[in-house]
């Protein structure tokens, strides 16, 4: 319950706060710091962020839940995002998603039992010219064939 930011994170938050005229404006950046610090954002983290920014926990949850890219509690070590919007759909992203579902033994939206992978079908990742597109945590892979996807997954530490 009594969660706290590390010394390093607190220093980073102070630097962030200096960049905005209001504390609230740092909500997304501080959630990013918290995401890194705690590996995901659960209720306790939201309370900590709220206290840090003089907001109510409900306000922080309202912001957190509006945005899809912040790590939800329970997500795996690697979040695999397959773009499913039109341009990618025209170039076979469904095949890539099917392949990953089969390989990982989970459906899109689920996490493997070992908590290593979470598979998500997401909306446009702005790489429409190089579809199908797969984002693995912060890394973007383009023109991803099933074979290439296998190689990417196998290369992950």
């Amino acid at each position, binding site marked *: 319950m009594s969660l706290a930011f590390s010394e390093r994170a607190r220093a980073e938050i102070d630097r962030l706060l200096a960049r905005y005229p209001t504390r609230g404006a740092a909500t997304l950046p501080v959630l990013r710091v918290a995401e890194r610090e705690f590996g995901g954002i659960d*209720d306790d983290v*939201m*309370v900590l962020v709220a206290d840090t920014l003089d*907001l*109510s*926990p*409900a*306000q922080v*949850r*309202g912001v957190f*839940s*509006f945005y899809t890219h912040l790590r939800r509690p329970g997500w795996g070590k690697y979040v695999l995002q397959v773009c499913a919007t039109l341009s990618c759909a025209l170039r076979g992203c469904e095949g890539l998603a099917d392949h990953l579902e089969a390989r990982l033994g989970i459906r899109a939206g689920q996490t493997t039992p070992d908590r290593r992978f979470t598979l998500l079908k997401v909306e446009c990742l702005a790489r429409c010219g190089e579809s199908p597109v797969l984002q693995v945590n912060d890394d973007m892979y383009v023109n991803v064939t099933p074979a290439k996807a296998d190689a990417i997954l196998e290369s992950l530490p």
Partner: protein
Amino acid sequence: MPRLTINGQEVEVPQGTLLIEACARVTEKPPHFCYHPGLRPDGNCRMCMVKIEGMRGVSISCTLPAAEGMVVSTEHPEVLAARRGVMEFLLIHHPLDCPVCDKAGECILQDHSYDHGRGASRYIEPKIVRPKRDLGPRIALWPERCIRCSRCTRFLDEVTGTSELAFFERGDRTDLDIFPGRPIDNPLSLNIVDICPVGALISKDFLFRARVWNLRKKASVCAACSRGCNVVLESYEGKLTRLVPRPNPHVNHHWMCDHGRLSHAYVHDPRRPRQIVKREDARSFNVALPEALEAIRAGLEAVRAAHGAAAVGGLVTAWLTNEELHLAGRLLRDVLGARRLVALAAPPGEAYVAKSGFRIAADRNPNRAGLEAVLGLVPDDEAVRALAADIETGAIRALLVLGGMPAPAYPEELVAVASRLELLVVQDLVPSALLDRAHIVLPAAAAPEKHGSFINDDGRVQRLEPLLVPPVPGGDLGILGALLRALGDRPPGGGGAVGVFADLAARNERFQGLTFQELGDLGRPRRGAEDRPRPPHAAGE
């Protein structure tokens, strides 16, 4: 002062008037859900649309200031079509459970559905299902009825600054909720139930208690503290069922506190004294008023004959109206020449100032200012102790206790010496040790049973209207008038609130120039008090 034309009619409005309010001067306010005059406009429901000549499509009227030369229609075909569209959208996931919904009858979604809806839905897809949930000690949420107008979140952001509620997720998954483990428990929380335009936010206190169209209503003021928030009292089958705020820009704007709403349980408490009781030799009899009056008269006469006129004392409370206080003063000071007249103080509560400036007074004596203006008295336990000392020494032999209060607060010293009195008359709202020792018990009338006026802590004289029948017909004013008559006097102005107020205004300079009728629904400042509406939002915001 822009001049504009609305539905063919020219109108001039103050600079900055929102179009929706300008429309209200000519016709009805355009139908709306998210707009609320006590909150910042948000423009999300898209219902209050109007057609403005020269502008493409339709425009919402709740965020746009009226401007010079605007030509506006609230009934343009495009407007009607847009409204019908919004209504249809709002109902696609709605459970249509009006028959079991608390809000039915005062739900604007229901009203607008009759006026602007289609009658039948074209939606055949699955509805989103959301189970109801608890939001705190006083409020529950029926999320399927929520239309995401954000009135409640804006109230909690702007007025209380507590922000317990927020929208989670987005799009049509947008879900109103609290943060887990952080219930809504602020002093003004129930206002969000009032302003919820639908039956999503429900007061647990009112849940399933009455259909609103069966409620009797009276405009009055709240007696829970000395602020005097304007309220509507509502009853069902003779029982006070609900208090809701009544807008008054001078006092409470659109709001009232939870304490005020929920502090009236004593009115229907089965232990509340409802009979006139005479006690003799440790035996009690229920008696009629004339018999009680005769006993009081005789008792007073005996004491005065044996110990002189000054052997009489009086104790009043700030639950008496100005008119009642006026009669009490006449009785105790002019007729009986009482040695001491003191006022009992209610224990202070917690003061509260909301972010918006809305106040709950720590002073829980609702008519403290009236007590001061009418009788020059201040509620003061020390004065009551001095009275007790006079009883102890035998200087006072007869005591009249008038008005009562919802929670007994008689000092120990007074209770301890009560048995020395040759005559103890106690009028009260609840049982107490003092009441148990009275020779004559008179039931007091509760605020929702009173016709009269209070003065709030800003010096505003405001009317109370009786919604319920007091235990003794005629209430406290009637009892006091009858007492005066029993003692050979007569109440001024015929003894009714209007006449007594007129007498008060004639004799007391603080009431000079006021008449009971002219107090109106919003009250008037007593002479010398400031008369200034407060802005609805906190300064500087």
